[in-house]
């Protein structure tokens, strides 16, 4: 009896022990997934026609080879250019074998580089747009119009080996205003797909295109012809804080377009910075879900000024300059202490739009990305937007600032070209 009791006790004891150390679910011990890093490549698009001179300008902090390749199913040979001593490289669309509206993939020596496409047709028109990182989520291209005599072309280029599928919607002055034909667009690998917005959505005076990349990755934007000028704007990902300098352009007016792909209405607040003062909440409004807001810059304040747009939802803010022989588009940008302005050197008379939102003056050092050109210093007063002339030649300009600034640039070459700079080092709190 005692033996049996001991046996039972042994059994129970072992059982309790087993219960206490029972294994749990194996949770794989994994390192933190890597934060997305800025890619060392960018894609852009442009029109390469006989009377259009299109150029990829690359500015790079790191020396090495730049590889540019036309987006083509046939797989054209890439063009390799070395970054010169000034940190610049230039690739002509003609050297890539481009014809028509095409895409180009540019690979840099490092992520501390940027490229832009500039186009000019004689002395009449000019346009520029930044080459962007691949879009794999949502993005919005703002500021198109399809009025009488105007054309707008949505360009989606996929330089990659994987097919992409993009859902395209749009909003206009009529609110959510989409074409069913664009509900799901296949962009095959190594292919550029264009859609005529003026045919699909005619007679819109302000059109923002929302893209949602469902598979793969693309680079996208809008090519616009209006007012006898050419403009291009790249699609960018929505954010909640935007900054932009706005300068006066002769014989033109400027509009601020705020678009969202949010399924909920978004509250926006616009602050203006001018002559050392800040006017907060000069505009407060609501952007309806999947819609846009069109705001005359004149209603916000007197030019030149800096504008900050903050919101409680994802939006994209852009600037549309419209006037006689003038149509220019650019997304707003962010703050940074270091900017690359590729493409600036392609035009005579280009100027940088610099917005210093800080409380003290910003000391800028401008380093042309062109051999033989010396750096120079410029001071930008606090809480003001100023125009800074750029040197011609090379790939553009590298700007280093003592404090955070927002930078766009423009050139008047008959028509107006307007583009944003590339923030090399973004400082965040």
């Amino acid at each position, binding site marked *: 009896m005692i033996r049996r009791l001991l046996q039972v006790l042994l059994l129970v004891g*072992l059982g309790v022990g087993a219960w206490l150390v*029972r294994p749990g*679910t*194996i949770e794989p011990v994994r390192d933190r*997934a*890597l934060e*997305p890093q800025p890619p060392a490549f960018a894609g852009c698009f442009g029109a390469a026609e006989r009377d259009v001179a299109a150029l990829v300008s690359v500015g790079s902090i790191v020396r090495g080879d730049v590889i540019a390749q036309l987006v083509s199913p046939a797989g054209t040979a890439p063009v390799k250019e070395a970054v010169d001593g000034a940190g610049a490289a230039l690739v002509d669309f003609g050297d890539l074998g481009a014809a028509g509206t095409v895409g180009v993939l540019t690979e840099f020596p490092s992520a501390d580089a940027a490229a832009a496409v500039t186009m000019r047709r004689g002395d009449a028109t000019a346009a520029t747009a930044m080459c962007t990182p691949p879009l794999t989520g949502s993005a919005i291209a703002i500021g198109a119009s399809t009025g009488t005599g105007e054309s707008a072309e949505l360009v989606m280029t996929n330089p*990659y080996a*994987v097919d992409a599928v993009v859902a395209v919607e749009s909003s206009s002055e009529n609110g959510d205003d989409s074409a069913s034909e664009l509900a799901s667009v296949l962009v095959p690998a190594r292919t550029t797909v264009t859609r005529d917005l003026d045919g699909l959505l005619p007679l819109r005076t302000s059109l923002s295109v929302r893209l949602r990349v469902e598979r*793969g990755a693309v680079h996208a934007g809008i090519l616009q012809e209006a007012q006898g000028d050419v403009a291009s704007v790249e699609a960018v990902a929505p954010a909640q804080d935007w900054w932009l300098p706005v300068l006066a352009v002769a014989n033109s007016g400027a509009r601020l377009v705020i678009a969202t792909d949010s399924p909920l209405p978004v509250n926006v607040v616009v602050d203006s910075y001018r002559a050392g003062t800040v006017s907060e909440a000069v505009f407060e409004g609501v952007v309806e879900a999947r819609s846009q807001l069109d705001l005359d810059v004149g209603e916000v304040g007197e030019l030149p000024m800096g504008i900050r747009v903050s919101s409680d939802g994802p939006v994209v803010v852009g600037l549309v300059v419209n006037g006689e022989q003038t149509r220019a588009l650019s997304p707003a940008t962010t703050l940074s202490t270091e900017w690359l302005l590729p493409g600036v050197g392609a035009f005579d008379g280009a100027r940088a739009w610099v917005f210093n939102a800080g409380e003290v003056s910003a000391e800028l050092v401008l380093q042309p990305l062109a051999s033989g050109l010396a750096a120079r210093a410029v001071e930008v007063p606090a809480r003001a937007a100023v125009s800074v002339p750029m040197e011609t030649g090379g790939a553009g300009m590298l700007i280093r600032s003592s404090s955070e600034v927002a930078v766009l640039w423009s050139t008047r070459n008959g028509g107006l070209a307007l583009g944003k700079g590339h923030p090399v080092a973004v400082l965040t709190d």
Partner: protein
Amino acid sequence: MTVSLSEDSERVPTATPTVAAAILFIEELALPVTLESVRSQVYEVESVAIIGGGDIGRRLAEKADVTHADSLAIFVARLDTSIDYVWVIHGDVRPRPDALGALVAETERNEASLVGSKVLNAAAPDRLESVGAATDVFGEPYSGLDPDEVDLEQYDVVRDVAFISGVSMLVRRDLIRGLRGLDMTLPPVAAGLDLSQRARIAGGRVMVAPSSEVLHLRACRHEGDGWRELAGRMRAMLKAYKWLTLLWAVPIGWLVLLLDAVARLSLGRVGPMVDMAKASFWNLVRLPSTLASRSLVRAVRATGDEELFRYQVSGSVRLRNLGSDMASRFGWIIDQEPGRVSEEELEREVSLSGPIGAGVAAALVGLATRALWLGGAPASGFWLPLGSSPASVLGSYAGGWNPSGLGSTESTHPVAALASGVQWLLGGWVGAQSLLTLSSIVFGVWGVARLLTRLGISGAARWLGGAVFVVGPFARVFTENAYWPGFLALGALPWLVDAVLSPADHTFRSIAGKVGRIALAAALAGAPAPMAVVIPVVAVILAVPIMDKSKLRPSSLWWAVVAVVIGADLISPYLLGIPPSALNVDLLDGTSWPALWWLGALALAAVLSATFGSSLEARTAGWGGALVAAGLLGVGMLPGEFEVAAMLLASLGAALVVGGAAHAHAGSGMVVRTGRGLALVAAAVVVASMIPAIVDGRIGLTEDGWSERLAFVSELEDSAGPERALLVGDSLPGEVRSGQGYDFRLITGSRPTLDQAWLAGDRIGDRALARTLIAVDGGVNARPGAALAEFAIRWVVVADDAPLSEVLGPQVDLAERRRVEGWTVFENLAFRPRVSGDGWVATRTAASGPASDSVVRLADNADPGWQPGWTQDEWSNALSAVDGTITYRPDPLRQGLAVASAGLLVLAAGLAFWGRAR
């Protein structure tokens, strides 16, 4: 009646038929008894002769004053025509005084030609030996009698039979003369069959006269079986049947023999296979003589084969006996040890519960595994198909290059070597793995039943325990984790424990047999689960406070240690360089842990049986419970192969708990009866846990994913040798390496194979690949394919939910080829082969190509074992192409150990067979 039998066939019946007795010499001592009994017959014989026996027979004849003839045919030829009948009788028979009279009376009354006596056992005169017999179409005798059946005159009917025993028969003199007597090349039973068949097709009646009783001393019984009788039956068939009948009867009969021989071989009996071979050869040699005899039969043939068929049983007697033997074997396994089982237990054993339990267990296991047999095994986890080159896998085990991942010098897992060895022995048969799985199931159930029987458990409980062992929740942990080696080890583990516990007498043969059994079981359990060789030690230690000395001998612990030593020796090539992952990586996921209610029921069954069961049940269930608890402790505390062994231990314990609890018999007293009843209910709940497995039919095995995902790869694979694929995501086959938020691994070829399941420890190339993947994962570079091409990766298979998949959208040199259920297959457009030289083709462990003075790069982990002209090229190998071939030089120590292990294994099998209990 035919006229061709003899020249005096038209004899005139006499008033009193005359009989000559022909006593066939069997044994010197028995013959005088027979002679005296013949002489003292009420019905007197005209003459007596002794047939055969050589000089002894001749001397005995002289001494008894009777004639002697060397053969029956000679004797018959000499007989006077006045003799009507010949009484052919064995020389070890004591006929009752009226035996001959009854034979003559019935022969005359029925106008029969050949009449036999009822044969009783002289040692037990109430036991029947023969009252005539039927055969099947292949000549296999079927008496219909149970062994030692008591004669209650239940068969006392004069009737026609297929053949009569040659022990005592009365045959018409003219008939036996026309048939040229007995075929003296045949042993007695076959000779009786042969004569009976020839008599029947000559138009005679073959009958048995039960009123004629003879007592058989059975001195000739050793001649009743064996290859000579089998050969005789074959010859009788060849002589009697028409060609048309032989056309189908011979091949089918031979197939039946083969099936029987193979089945009995699986039971450890070689005899039937040898008998079959010898009998076939004997008939082949005597074919001319058989054909000559056949022509004689044709001369006297009066009827067709259908006259023979009338007295034959349908089907095959041999197969029927085989089925009966198998059922007996499965229903009553441990009967080899005389004196071990009590009479009471024997009575219980022969009850129907054993076979029924076996049948139920077989049905449960069959239902629970049906999808594996109907749909094939999946490629998942460690349940992976065997490679197409078993020899190279064996080479990898024996100190050669192990190409798993980026290659290493570590031995491949011994289960891969075991499976490849079996595959190699079966000529590369693709079904080798299924055969192993099936064997594991069958031997797992059988082994548990055998172990429980050794512990004293009988009836259906043993089989239910066996079923729980292979498809219960603990076993399903292996299937749900797709860990095939663990499942395979289930087949050998109970045999290992049983071999350790089995008694051995002090003869060399017995001890050698036990060593052989232990070694064989340790190898078969240790190859799939290397740490399982330790289980007997744990099991015996836990049994010490529980089992009594009749079940657990003091030497058992030493035998358990012997199992560890031998088992470790047999897998020494692996243990010599066991990868760290084998000892520190969790192989079994806790999500497959048995449900709480099931563990509760198991614990209840163990505790209640240990408390209220009979001593037998308490010991068994108590020991089982202790094994379960120890196993679970091990699973909770130990990783890697130890964890697998612990789970095996738990599964064995669960089987013993069920065996003990389900064996419960009603006891005395309300409390005891209630306790045992509850234990039985708890055991039933444990058994019911197999229902989910029965419903899904896959014993929880995960669905196949990789066959389809990689089918595309095999379609596109070119002839430059197997190419590498990088798999990224969760639920990858085999072992994995951890990336930044995902798992990854390499496989070589168009499918993951078992030998690749285990990865070696991180080497220089593996670290380089990990760094490359981190870079790719960052998405900085647009050309991940070029980076992966360094590692000869042509295919990248990525789970869509893996973080890495996000960066494989914007890239230019990994082309998407297929999307399958959440996975995407990319082809690397920048691919470079594993061996870089033009025209070079790589196999798993070598490469060849045009000889030249150049250097070729081998994209495997750098190792100086590669030759010729090895130098390190970053993390890979640079080799001279001067020979036109590059090979890996195996480690001679591990190679020698592997060869020695194989030799030991064969020796162990031989010893186990030689020293098996008889």
